[in-house]
C-alpha cells in the first residue's frame, strides 16, 4: 500500500517534470525521457508486473496530456517495462553499467517505434538525419540522467524494502 502510494506520487512528479518543469530550463534543446527511465527502473528493481503497470500508466498520462492517439506510447512503455522486468533477480542491479545499457536499448527501441509507426508510414525515409538530430541527443541525455535517477530509485527501493521487512517481522 505504502509502495503503491509512493510510486503513484513519483509518477506524478516525473510527469510534471517532463512536461512543464524541464521546459523552463533555458538552453536545453533536448529533454531526457524521465518516464522511460522510471519505467525500466521499476522493471529492473521490482519485476515485470510493476514495470508493466508503471509503463502503462505513465504512458497513458503522457498520451492524454499531449498525444494524438491514446495508448500509443502507453503500449511501448508497457512492453519496455515487461522486457526489463524479465531480468528481475537474474541480474545484479548495483552496477552503473546496468542502467546505462538498459537506458540505451530502451531509448533506441522507443525511438524506432515512434519512427516506424508515425514517420515511416508517412514515407519519411531520411532516418539518418532523424537519428542525428533527434534520437542521438535524447539518447545521450537520457543515458546520463538515468545513471543518477536510477541510483536514487535504487536506494529508495532498498530503503522501502528494509522498511517492509522490518514491519513484516513485527507482525510475525
Amino acid at each position, binding site marked *: 500500500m505504502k509502495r503503491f502510494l509512493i510510486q503513484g506520487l513519483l509518477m*506524478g512528479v516525473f*510527469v*510534471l517534470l*517532463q*512536461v*512543464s*518543469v524541464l*521546459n*523552463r530550463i533555458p538552453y536545453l*534543446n*533536448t*529533454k531526457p*525521457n524521465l*518516464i522511460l527511465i522510471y519505467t525500466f527502473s521499476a522493471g529492473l528493481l521490482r519485476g*515485470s*508486473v510493476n514495470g*508493466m*503497470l508503471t509503463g*502503462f500508466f505513465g504512458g*497513458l*498520462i*503522457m*498520451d*492524454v*496530456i*499531449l*498525444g*494524438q*492517439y*491514446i*495508448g*500509443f*506510447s*502507453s*503500449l511501448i512503455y*508497457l*512492453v519496455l517495462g*515487461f522486457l526489463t*522486468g524479465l531480468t528481475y533477480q537474474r541480474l545484479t542491479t548495483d552496477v552503473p553499467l546496468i542502467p546505462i545499457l538498459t537506458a540505451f536499448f530502451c531509448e533506441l527501441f522507443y*525511438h524506432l517505434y*515512434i*519512427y516506424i509507426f*508515425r*514517420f515511416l508510414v*508517412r514515407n*519519411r525515409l*531520411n532516418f539518418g*538525419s*532523424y537519428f542525428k*538530430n*533527434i534520437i542521438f*541527443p*535524447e539518447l545521450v541525455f537520457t543515458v546520463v540522467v538515468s545513471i543518477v535517477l536510477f541510483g536514487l530509485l535504487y536506494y529508495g527501493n532498498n530503503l522501502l524494502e528494509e522498511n517492509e521487512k522490518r514491519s513484516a517481522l513485527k507482525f510475525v
Partner: protein
Amino acid sequence: MKKRRLDFLFSIKYILLILTIICLVSLVITYSKGDSIGVYKTAVSKAFSPISNAITGIGDHFSDQKKLRTEKEELLERIEHLEEENRLLQDQLRKYQSDYYSLSEMKELLNIKDDFSGYPMVGAKVIAKENGNWFSKFTINRGSNDGIEKDMNVVAAGGLAGIVTQVGPDYSVVTSILDDQMNVSAICRSSRASCMVMGDIDAMSEGYIRLMYMKKDADIREFDEIITAPTSSKYLPDLTIGYAVLLQTDPNNMTMSGYLIPSVDFENIENVMVILKLKQ
C-alpha cells in the same frame, strides 16, 4: 516449485495481454474518432491542469522576484520591454504596410474586411510541451470552457503559431506549424503568389519551415513576408507565418522551393492568443 514459477509467468502474461489489448483498443478508438475519448481526458485534466498551472505560476513568481532583485535583470527587463514595444511597433508597421498593399484592392472589394485584430481572441499560457523532439505540440491552459474549439487558429507575438488539435474542458493541445504533419497554404503578402508551408523535422531543428510548390517564375523574393492564404480551409486569412529565405528552383525546373523563418519565437513561446473564430 517448478509449477509455481510457471503459474507466476502465466499471470504476468495475462496482465501483459490485458494491458496490451486495452492499449490497442483505445488506439483504434482514438484513431477512428480522430480525437481522444472524453472520459480519459476529463479525468486526467482535472488532476493535471491545476498542478501544471500552479507550477507555471510558481515559476513565474520566482522569475519575477529574481528580476526585481538584481539590477542586471532589471535592465534585461527593460530591454525586453523595449523589444516588446518594438515588436508592437513592427506589428503596427506591418499592419500599415498591409493596409497600403490592400488599399487598391479595398477600393474594389469594399466589403471584405481582413484585419485579424478584429477577431474575438482569448489569451492563454503554455503549460506543457511535447515529450521529446519528434513532434511540436504544446498544451495551453484554456479549453472548451473558454469557448475554444478544435481547428481554431493560435497566434503569438509575430504571427501564426499553430492550430488547436485537441480540446479538454480547461486545457487544449496546440500543434505548432513546425510539426511534421502540418501543411498551410499560404501567399506572399506583396505579390499574392501562392505557395505551401510544410512542417519538416529536418528544417525544424534549424529553426526553419519548408516552403514549397511555388511557380518557378513567381514573384517571391528573399525576406518577403508569407501570410496565410484566403483559400486555406482551416486558417484565417492574412496571418503572418514568416519570411521566405533560401529560395531556389527545384530540379524539375517548374517549381521553386525554399525555407521560411517563422515570425513566432517557438523556443521561448509562453503566451499565445487563440482566435475564437473558425474559418467557414
